[in-house]
């Protein structure tokens, strides 16, 4: 590997690390890397380009995330970075990292039960309470505090909780 190539790889790694540290404004324990929202970071003619994809079509956090990615790249020394939003391939909860799922659970949100299939979308699987791990839970509402979550209640410990929907 030439030294120029090695320099460029180091820069790309640095740019990736800067973007990967950006957190989801609605679920601040998760980074956009944990979520699978960060798809790619590359250097094009010396300019950093980050590629992100929305979770839901109308996710109101996307503009905020794009702005934070841009700022993170600026802070890391990449001037005039570009943030590109792509729709394809469509985001899926299957892209959420295991570390991300653990963080969600610790935060009090039941992580998506993957992998996504028609069964997961329509036949309700058992959702374990993120607090007491009981499977004796009941869905309160299909839609919760944000587009990506539904609202559940644990019948064992009586606590309400959010479940990150499979999509």
């Amino acid at each position, binding site marked *: 590997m030439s030294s120029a190539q090695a320099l460029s790889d180091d820069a790309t790694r640095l740019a990736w690390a800067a973007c990967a540290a950006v957190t989801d404004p609605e679920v601040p324990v998760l980074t956009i890397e944990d979520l699978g929202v960060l798809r790619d970071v590359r250097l094009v003619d010396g300019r950093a380009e980050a590629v992100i994809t*929305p979770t*839901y*079509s*109308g*996710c*109101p956090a996307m503009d905020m995330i794009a702005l934070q990615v841009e700022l993170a790249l600026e802070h890391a020394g990449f001037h005039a970075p570009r943030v590109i939003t*792509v*729709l*394809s*391939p*469509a*985001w899926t909860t299957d892209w959420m990292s295991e570390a991300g799922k653990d963080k969600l659970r610790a935060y009090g949100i039941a992580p998506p039960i993957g992998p996504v299939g028609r069964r997961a*979308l*329509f036949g309700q699987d058992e959702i374990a309470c993120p607090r007491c791990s009981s499977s004796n839970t009941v869905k*309160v*509402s*299909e*839609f*919760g*505090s944000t*587009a990506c979550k539904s*609202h559940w209640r644990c019948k064992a410990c009586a606590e309400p909780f959010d479940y990150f*929907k499979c*999509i």
Partner: protein
Amino acid sequence: MSTNPLFEMSLRLADDALVLGHRLSEWCGHAPVLEEDLALANLALDLIGQARSLYSYAGKVEGAGRDEDALAYCRREAEYHNCLLVEQPNGDFALTIVRQFLFAAAMHPFHQEMTRSSDPTLAAIAAKAEKELAYHLRHAAEWVIRLGDGTDESRRRTEAALDHLWTFSGELFEVDAILRTAIDQGLVPNPTDLRAVFDATVDDVLAQADLARPKDGWMQTGGRMGRHSEHMGFLLTELQYLQRLHPNARW
């Protein structure tokens, strides 16, 4: 009407999503229970998100410098090509739910098929919308069953909503000349091919709700050509208020 089938199809789908999303957003703060307030706002958010992607793309395809805001806020009533179903007023909760159910039952299979569009952007938008509409359909179907098989009052209201809105269901399956061209180009699926899926969903859910399916009779039409019901003008007055009063205002 534009003669570019890609532009026209993007616009129709965007108008459907925007107008229904706007109607649902009118429930914000007024739904019968807090959970439904959140649910209806979430549905609205999905639909307006889909509309944004479609309007942005339509603007690009048209190449006349119109962006998503120009298309959403700065057209006249006759230039909106949404189906008449989505512009019907919210009425009571039963009417809103039945409207949502009929729309999702028709549009979920449509987007599922459109994921195979010959146009990669339409396919990408459909791949997202398809997953969202699966949830919309399930939510609406559960409510139709609960209301139809609920109290005498909820049943009476749901029957009335179904009878009233059924006359708007025919338009969802109409194929005019420009849609025919779009189908021939592989841009969008043929809705008449998807009629059987819609019928099966409707029959299944109505059977569980113990509701009779209305007879197919005279059907409303005109939205795709920009001929709207009287409600559309009032809706647009509210939707466009800020842009009309303060042109090019930015958030």
